[in-house]
């Protein structure tokens, strides 16, 4: 079976500062080369804290940002030009802030028609039928079509955002923090809707979030990002329940959970490494209790730790003895 999405050495480096004649004086590696394969029909959760490169990765995947190196392959076909129209039919994006992803001066009908007209060149009658079908799928009433974005609540606006992504008829959706701007009671509605749509339309999801519990609830596999690299990837049921990378463990221990006493999992007020001056070895070494000399000088590779999980660590935590 061909993979829905395959990334080969995908990376992004941003130039920083401006010297004489506009030449950049330094560069920041926002995403280190990533290899990733997502089988068709899977939900891959991507978690990480702010600044870990998850949004940069997402923007490269939909063609809004040209990658510095590497290639993106969708269902066996390579897509290496940063041209959103080439990407649009195969991979779509759902934005974090549903209201600001809708033009305040356009009706919902105009928003919905854009992908149908420009990506698929549909005629008017066809477009009408298609919009009706999609709106039924995302539980929106057709009377909403002639209203403007400011008339909607966050949850409704996010359904519209999902409807727009579906209109492009892409088989892969990048969901970039799709529920973090929503209230918890509405968040569950949207998450359930996404689960229903996936079954009905045979979609593949990349679900990006900072909320570990949400990712665990929706994903088949989870990739943990730290400082622009995947540090651990494995089945959703294992990643947080039995973390192998010390950073994953720190994340899991930090999440507030009912019934767990409050402790600071990290005593020292350590900060993220400086992107302008990255450490030579493992980026997590300065915060890690298990770090050795090897960790500080050599970058660990993402290796199989057995039981289907892969972690980029020289001294991974023990597998649970079950």
């Amino acid at each position: 079976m061909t993979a829905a999405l395959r990334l080969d050495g995908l990376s992004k480096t941003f130039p920083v500062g401006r010297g004489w004649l506009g030449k950049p004086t330094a560069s920041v590696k926002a995403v280190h080369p990533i290899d990733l394969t997502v089988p068709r029909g899977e939900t891959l959760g991507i978690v990480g804290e702010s600044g870990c490169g998850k949004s940069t990765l997402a923007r490269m995947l939909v063609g809004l940002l040209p990658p510095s190196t590497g290639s993106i392959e969708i269902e066996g076909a390579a897509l290496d030009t940063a041209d959103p129209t080439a990407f649009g039919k195969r991979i779509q994006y759902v934005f974090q802030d549903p209201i600001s992803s809708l033009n305040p001066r356009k009706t919902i009908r105009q928003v919905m028609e854009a992908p149908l007209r420009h990506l698929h060149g549909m005629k008017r009658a066809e477009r009408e039928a298609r919009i009706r079908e999609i709106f039924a799928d995302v539980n929106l009433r057709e009377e909403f079509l002639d209203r403007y974005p400011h008339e909607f609540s966050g949850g409704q606006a996010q359904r519209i955002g999902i409807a727009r992504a579906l209109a492009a008829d892409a088989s892969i959706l990048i969901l970039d923090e799709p529920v973090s701007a929503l209230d918890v009671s509405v968040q569950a509605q949207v998450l359930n809707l996404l689960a229903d749509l996936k079954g009905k339309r045979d979609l593949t999801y990349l679900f990006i979030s900072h909320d570990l519990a949400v990712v665990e609830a929706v994903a088949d596999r989870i990739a943990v990002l730290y400082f622009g690299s995947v540090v651990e990837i494995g089945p959703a049921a294992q990643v947080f329940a039995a973390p192998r990378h010390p950073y994953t463990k720190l994340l899991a221990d930090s999440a507030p959970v009912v019934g767990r006493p409050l402790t600071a999992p990290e005593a020292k007020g350590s900060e993220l490494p400086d992107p302008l001056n990255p450490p030579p070895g493992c980026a997590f070494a300065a915060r890690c209790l298990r770090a050795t000399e090897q960790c500080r000088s050599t970058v660990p590779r993402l290796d199989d730790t057995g039981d289907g999980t892969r972690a980029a660590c020289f001294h991974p935590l023990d597998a649970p003895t079950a």
Partner: protein
Amino acid sequence: MKFLTLLARNRLALGGGVVMALVVLLALVTPILPLADPDVTDTARRFLPPFSEGALLGTDHLGRDLLSRLLWGTRLSLAVGFAAAISAATIGAAIGIVAGYFGGWLDNVVMRGVDMLMAFPYILLALAIVAALGPGLMNALIAVAAVNVPFFARNIRGITVGLAHREFVDAARLSGLSDTRIILSEVLPNVVPVIVIAMSTTVGWMILETAGLSFLGLGSQPPQADLGSMLGEARAALISHPHTSIVPGAMILIVVMSINLLGDGVRDALDPRLKSGALSRPRAATLVERKGPVPASEGRGLLEVQDLRTEFHVGPRTYRAVGGVSLHVEQGECLGIIGESGSGKSVTALSVMGLVASPPGVITGGAVRVEGEDMIGTPYRRLRDLRGRKVAYIFQDPLATLHPLYRVGDQLVEAIRAHRPIGRAEGRAKAIELLEAVRIPNAAKRISDYPHELSGGMRQRIGIAMALANDPDVIIADEPTTALDVTVQAQILSLLDDLRRSRGLAIVFITHDFGVVAQLCDRVAVMYAGRIVEEGPTASILETPCHPYTARLMACVPELGEGRRRLEAIPGLPPAVDKLPPGCAFADRCAKARAECRQGEIALSRAGPRAVRCLYPETPVMEAAQ
């Protein structure tokens, strides 16, 4: 329509609009009025004073009818002024949009060119253009338009740069729109109001500039009249026959004045910042219009809120943000307030120290007692003395609450100085001590950092340090960790927990996260649509929630360690607080709702430490209290 009503509310703009409409009307009907030919000279009748026979406004130095010349001249000046404004706006906006949208080297080249144009003095540049092209009205128009292009280009570029990075532009790109289409259908409609505002405020200026060029003899050529050339020709007779100058001069004054008044009105009516009321400065303390008696103190807690009601009055609508909230917190206790957005939890917190913005906020009832003293309706001087010293706040976004241009140490010292005089050295020592108290490494160095030099977690520590600066008894923390990463959140929460234990602080912690409440708070109050629907000890509520809303809210939050599953969603949305239903506000979303739930007040029924506002609770409150 809304635009016109807003405009009409501005009396000066309305007056300007009426005068302008009259002038434009006169200019339009000039060709059909029974006027003398404006260009026919009659030297026998030169310098006739106003109100002479056959010449209502008199005649000029060549005996031409001034009224006729004035009307024809006004017509020409207005036409040239508007044409210049429209061409300047079109060309300038096009340059600005292209430069702002594409950015990069194109932006650099274009905008440096525009900057160079702007570096020349206005009138000198216009003179140079006319000198190069030769005198004449058309060339004057080109000159005036050209000198105004940079103004539009810079204005519109700034707006476009902001728009080009908005998410809806990315979304349009993903929908397959080309750059041209994005500019025309996504960017332009959002820029048009700005163009209109810029035009309405500059068209008067352009009429003046055209008149200036004509006055110098570079614009309209004799015998053609425009307001500037009329003034220029009358200059020689300024002393002997002043009416020849006064007539065109007064018209210029009327035209420019009315256009500017109207332009200001248009800008005010179109500017979205004015619509939201952000420019009307809020009062120093929330307006209090207490209806009904002040509830008597029950003497509970360090901070006691009784039947607090806060409303927002916006136009004809009343939003009941807080509809009778009572709570209290003891020394060393942490009370959690949990609810969704719009549940009134933040407004409750801000009402305590009168920090709700007025207008539109009004406290309409209840009492807030700090150590027994009622804060509602306290004179501002007293309120200010207590803010920060007795009750301090920590807000959600530390980047928004810290001043970006001052060093964090100076801001800390300022917070202390608001309550007691403190010397330089002592202030510095105290600031370092505070930063150490919130566990900022390298405190002595960090106090001279600016807010943008610190990470989100460090900034929130500064926010906490500032709240601690005057040793308050109560700290109200409004979602202090929502904007932070989980690892940082864990650090901040444990810091707050340590502080309350070591300093005996009372904390009111506002959040939407049950996990946080469970770890930090002793008691919790659940709010929905401006009221407390359930209250009690945290562990007890988490174990046996009584109110259906609490139970369902807990069920729909995914929790780490439960694995992949379908979540229990609550159907529908919370009610709008300006249209609250009678009875229980949750009834429409509740599976257990019956007819009784939708009528009349539902009281908070108490049993021991637990309280619930529900007729058919999940577990009877008596049982839950056991």
